[in-house]
Structure formats: C-alpha cells, structure tokens
C-alpha cells in the first residue's frame, strides 16, 4: 500500500509485523483506536531487603538478567562519540553464545559502527535506532540487514517503549555516577555526560536494568536521575567512555560566514513572525547554522528587551551561555551535547533534566515540545515539498540521525529548516529527498544564504510576511539559482530492496531506506 507521501509500504514485514502507512502528521493521534490506547504494565520485580545488587562482571549481570536468544537489549547514547559500553558488551554477549538479539539503543554513533560485525555473526538480528553512522550505515544501505533497520525519532522511541510496541528485556545503562543500590546520575564522575533523558525511559519500562558504572559512589547518591527502585543490578567496570568526545564538532558556534548569513536570515524571519514576543520558547538543533541562529535571535531579544520562556533540546554550551545571560528563563535538557553543559547542571537550577517521554512522546498527556514556539533545524537535503532528510548522505548511505527532528517540527508553531544552498557542489534543494525523516507539512520555512522560502502550505505565515522586507523567494527558484552555480546533479540510484524503515513519531511508516547502487 502507498502512504500519504506516495511511498510503497509493505503491509507486513517478517520480524516487524504489521506496518501502518503514514497518513499525515497528526492523523493517528486524532483517530486513536482502542488498540492504540491499551495499557502495558511494567514488569513487577521484588527483592528481599538486604539483597546485594552488586555483580562483579558484565557476564554475571547478564546471567542474572535472564536474557534469552532473540531478546531485546537497550543502551543509551548520552556519551555519544566517547561511548565504550555498547562495544564492550557486544563481545561478551557473543562469547556467552547469544543469538538473534534485537538491538534497541536510543541511537548509534561513530564508536558503535562495528555493530555490523555482530549482525554478520548472527548475534544481532534486528536494529532499532535513531541514527546510523560509519561502516554500520554503509552496511545497512548496501542491503546488509536481513530484517530492515527501524529508524525512530526520540519521541517515537519513547512512544514505542511506553506502548509496549517494543519491550526491552534488558537495559544496559552506562552510569557516570552510581551507588550500590543503583541510584544514578550523569553529572559527576570521569564519564559525566549530563542529562540521562533517554536512559530514564529505558529504566522505567525495561524488564531488567543493569547499571554499568566506572564511578561507584557512596550510598545514597544525590541528585538522582534514575532511582534505585528501577535498577536490578550494578556492575563496576574500569572505563565507561571518553567524555572529551561527547561533543561533536557540530555543537560549537560556527565561524563559517555562510552559516552566519543563513542564521541572520532565519533570525530576521523569527523577528518578523508573531512568535517573537515575551515568553517565546525556542529550540536550536546542533548544526553550525542552527546554533548561530540562537546568537542572532538573542541579539534581537536583547535589543527589544524580550525574555524567552524556555529553551529545550539537545543542549550545547552556547545555549547554557544564553541561559546564564538571562535570555531564556529555563532550559530543558534531554541530552547534553558537550562537557560544558555538564557543569551548568551543578551551577544553575533553571537547567532541568527531562526524559524523552516528557520531551517529545506524541502518546502521552502532553510533551513539552507541544509548548514550543520556534524550532530551527538542520538538513542534509530538503525537497520542493519541504520534506527533509537528515539520515541518508550524498553518497546514498545512512549516515545521520532522526533525533528530535520530526518531533519538534511537528509540534513547534514555527519550524525553520536551515542549510546552505549547496555544500561542496551538492545542492541541498532537490526534487525529492532520498529518504523523508520529517514531512514537508510540518515545515514552515527553508532558510539559506540566498533567502527565505516559506512553505506555501502555511498560507497564514506566507500572507503575514508578504509585505515584510524579508528576502523571500520560492523554493523552486532557489533550487534553479543554485543549480545554475553547481550544475544539475545526476540522481543517486537505488534498488527496490528495503534496507530500513523510517517510522514516524506516531508509529506509522513514512519512508524506507533503499539499497544504494554503487557506481
């Protein structure tokens, strides 16, 4: 069957069951079925007082968990590019003889690209993730998975866990600070990574929770992000990760003049919108230009004496700076992008850790992004219908992440996608993106160094800006102008094989990852 974006979606896929086609950003939420609303209880555990939770190796912790072949294991990616845990656990599971596991991490970053070898060996059969990088992304895009990878947004993952669509048998939680009873936080210790927003959901719903720490502190730990009553066992290892690698380059304020031009345009668009007012809430993605928007926006806010209500998201040091300066009153942090953010937790009580359910889950009584006024997001590609791809790169490989992109785009009142018109010759505006992560109906504007393209679907916004002095341009004209400079690219070629499914935040299938034809 075809979904709303005219993508052919199989009704059933072995290992993944029945698939629902995407029908529109809020269609499923508007028409919830009885099945959608079923309640899935958390597995009850009970221990005798005085039982020790400490296990002296990961093997023993896994034995204690009762993990079986085909079981689902989860990890968080809060230590990002510095994470050691997942790749430490995989060879242990292999050695213990496990097969056909479902790998269900909050995302996979560069240090995890070796996972493909465990797929080859049969240890892992399925992968559910937000992101794919390096060799693993190439492996997937070349058709390496027997069962397609499922790519989810952060909000969509919280929904899948909470609704029982995916049951986590064992959650491995890298714990930068942990006491013997399993109280955990992410803000102290040698591997401190800040917020544990994604891990918090896993701890709440997993059947068995293994805390793995390199920093066993005296009981009781404070503050507590994940409480002891959700944690079944605690294992001490020598090193969880390298916190210097938590921050990727993308979290610094860009020095590229093109990024600044884009950011100035985007900030002017916000300034001219109805949302630029006292109490405005704002989120900026981690890309160079998106973060620079925060800079220009804060300049406008200072000049017009406006204080923002809250800022939210993956948090970088630059946003911490804006909180400190009082540009925004509060900051919600589901994931900390660099080490500087960790210190802010100790210093600033307005810097609040939230979990992925609170952040972006569409199936709860109201995630905080429902209150978001403006979000600025990056893109690998955008098409003339404003659909955005942040996953499949210009070589046709899955080398990115869904993240909170589609969640925030759907919920924010003003969604702005920013990108240069071309990067190293490749135009960013295409006829149709290779893989849709965020549907065009949830995107209000595309801003580049060459101007501002308003999505004509948002007629109210388009009309309200008609008489402004903004550099408005039709996205098709921007595409034409760009191709005059770059030349028209030949399209990538894909086969019909489905290598991955892009699950929209509401659980419907919005697109697929196709197999790239190597030329």
């Amino acid at each position: 069957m075809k979904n709303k974006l005219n993508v052919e979606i199989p009704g059933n896929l072995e290992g993944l069951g029945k698939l629902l086609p995407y029908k529109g950003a809020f269609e499923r939420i508007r028409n919830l079925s009885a099945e959608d609303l079923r309640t899935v209880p958390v597995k009850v555990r009970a221990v005798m007082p005085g039982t020790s939770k400490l296990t002296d190796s990961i093997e023993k912790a896994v034995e204690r968990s009762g993990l079986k072949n085909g079981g689902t294991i989860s990890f968080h990616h809060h230590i990002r590019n510095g994470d050691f845990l997942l790749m430490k656990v995989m060879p242990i599971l292999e050695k213990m003889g496990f097969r056909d596991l479902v790998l269900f991490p909050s995302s996979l970053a560069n240090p995890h690209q070796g996972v493909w070898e465990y797929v080859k060996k049969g240890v892992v059969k399925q992968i559910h993730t937000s992101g794919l990088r390096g060799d693993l992304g190439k492996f997937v895009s070349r058709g390496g998975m027997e069962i397609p990878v499922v790519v989810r947004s952060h909000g969509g993952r919280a929904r899948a866990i909470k609704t029982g669509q995916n049951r986590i048998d064992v959650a491995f939680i890298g714990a930068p600070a942990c006491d013997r009873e399993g109280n955990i936080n992410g803000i102290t210790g040698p591997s401190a990574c800040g917020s544990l927003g994604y891990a918090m959901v896993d701890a709440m719903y997993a059947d068995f929770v293994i805390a793995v720490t390199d920093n066993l502190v005296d009981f009781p730990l404070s503050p507590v992000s994940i409480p002891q009553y959700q944690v079944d066992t605690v294992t001490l290892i020598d090193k969880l990760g390298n916190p210097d690698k938590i921050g990727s380059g993308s979290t610094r304020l860009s020095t590229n003049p093109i990024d600044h031009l884009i950011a100035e345009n985007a900030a002017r668009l916000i300034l001219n919108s109805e949302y630029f007012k006292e109490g405005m809430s704002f989120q900026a993605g981690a890309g160079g230009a998106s973060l620079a928007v925060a800079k220009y926006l804060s300049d406008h806010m200072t000049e017009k004496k406006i204080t923002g209500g809250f800022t939210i998201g993956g948090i970088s040091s630059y946003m911490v700076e804006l909180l400190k300066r009082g540009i925004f009153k509060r900051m919600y942090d589901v994931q900390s992008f660099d080490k500087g953010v960790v210190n802010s937790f100790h210093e600033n009580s307005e810097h609040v850790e939230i979990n992925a359910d609170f952040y972006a889950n569409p199936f709860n009584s109201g995630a905080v992004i429902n209150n978001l006024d403006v979000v600025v997001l990056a893109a690998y590609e955008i098409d003339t219908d404003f659909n955005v791809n942040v996953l499949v790169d210009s070589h046709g490989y899955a080398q990115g992440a869904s993240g909170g992109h589609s969640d925030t785009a759907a919920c924010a009142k003003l969604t702005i996608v920013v990108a240069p018109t071309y990067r190293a010759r490749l135009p960013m505006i295409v006829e149709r993106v290779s893989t849709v992560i965020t549907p065009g109906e949830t995107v209000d504007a595309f801003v580049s160094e060459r101007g501002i393209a308003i999505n004509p679907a948002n007629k109210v916004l388009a009309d309200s800006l008609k008489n402004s002095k903004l550099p408005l341009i039709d996205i098709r004209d921007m595409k034409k102008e760009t191709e005059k400079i770059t030349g028209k690219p030949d399209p990538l070629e894909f086969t019909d094989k489905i290598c991955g499914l892009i699950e929209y935040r509401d659980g419907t299938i919005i697109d697929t990852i196709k197999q790239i034809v190597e030329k």
Partner: protein
Amino acid sequence: MKEFKLRRTMLYIPGNNPGMIGNADIFGADSVLFDLEDSVAASEKDAARELVGSFIKNRGFSNIEITVRVNPMGSEYIRDDLIAVVDGNLDAVRLPKTNSKNDVRELEKMLEEVEKEKGIGRKIRIHPMIETALGVENTFDIALSSKRIDAITIGGQDLTADMEIVKTEKGDELFYARTRIVMAAKAAGIDAMDTVYADVNNEQGLIEETQMVKKLGFTGKAVINPRQIKPVHNVFRPASEEIEWAREVINAYEAALKEGKGVIAIRGKMIDPPVVKRAQKIIAIAALENGAEDEE
C-alpha cells in the same frame, strides 16, 4: 554595462581560494575584490589568476561590481594577470603600489591591448591604490591620469611600511595620506576608498574607524571578512536626522526656485549650491538603501 551607485564596501577575496570565490557575491558587499597580489604566494600566481579568470568568465556574478587586484606595475606578473582576468564581466582593475601617472598610463595601454585582443568592447576601469610615500605625493596627478579611473584607494599596511613606521590601532599616522587622497578624489570627482581594518574580531574598532573616515570624506572602505560588511554599511547609511535635514534643504531649494528667490536659508543658515548637491546625494543614497535592512 552594470550601474553601481553605491560603493561602500569592497570585499577582499584571496585569489587562490575557490570556496570563497564561489560565494563572493552573496554577502551583500557593494563590490568584490579578487586578490592576485599579497594573498597569493609567488608559486601560485599562475593558478590564482587562472582561477579568478575562470570564475569571472564562466560565472559572471551579475549583480555586483567585480574588481581584481593585479600585481604591481613592473612585476613579472601583471601582463599575464590581465590576460587571465580581462573579460566582459570584469568591471575594474585595482593597481597596487601606484606611484605615478605613468603607472596608470602603462596599465591603460596594457588594458587596451588585452581588451582588443579579446574583442571586449567595454573599457575596464582602473582603481589606483596609493600605498607608497611617492604615490601619496602624486595622488592628484594619478587621480586625473585616466578617464578609466572612478575610484582611488589607500593601502594602509604597505604605506606605513614604506614610511618606515608602525600602523597603529588609531591610525593617526595615516591622517595626512587619508586627507590628501580624499581631497584629490573630490577634486577629480571620483570615489575615495579607505584601507582595511585588520582586526576582524573588533567590531567596535571597525565602526569607529569607519565613522572617522566617513567624516574625512571617504565614500567606502575595503573589508577583509564578510562580518565587516554590515557595520560599514551601517556607518555609511545616512542617519534619519541627516535625511530629514536633506529633505528640508531640497524643499527650501525647490520653493526658492519657484518663487525666483536668489538666497535660501533654513534654520537660520544660508544654503549654497554645494550644500543642495550634498542634500540631493544623501536622499539618493537613502533611496538606494531603502528596503535593505530595517524591519520590525
């Protein structure tokens, strides 16, 4: 031919940097200046001139004044520079280290030859760059030496070196050269462009220096980073009081014309024809800039 009414900023782009050349026209500078001289190593002169020439020819950059700083007269490079960059899309050549009217005349001759050889109908303009003591003393002669000249410019870095002094933050040592160059430009009826402000991270310093040279009579300033464009444009934008004053002058002037009065006065001050001319220019600049940056 393209018409350029404003020349507040000229953005320097190193001639051997394809990434920056490709984006030269999007930062909002009034002119771009592809540099083949100081920013290009001797071993890369051939590559840079060919790169700049290729972009001018194949890309065009139709909405912006395109200028190239070639190597100085007497260098082994200048003729090859011109052969590579002269094109129907090129607007002006900046001649560094112009010492005398002979330098300009020699360049004019070379330009004529290359234009003829390439069958280019238009006359590419010349922007002499004054950056030697000798050049400063010859400025007026230089300004009048060719009809192709429509702007003259000062190069502060090399000039202070030639004067065997240090270029300071405040730039007092350039005062004589600046005023001399401005006066020559005004006398010749051409634009006067100021030298670059090197500290790209000091926006306040840039603004203060631009305010100072605007007061002296400069019409624009060379910039080395896109971030410097907006602050310079802001300084050169007529202030609202200035525009108001100019309107008043023009209204009074027009009323006086109607009534056949010989003497005009506003706010108790006599208004002469040069003042009316200045008022008209302010209104013209304001009209050109209208719609550029101020919105709610």
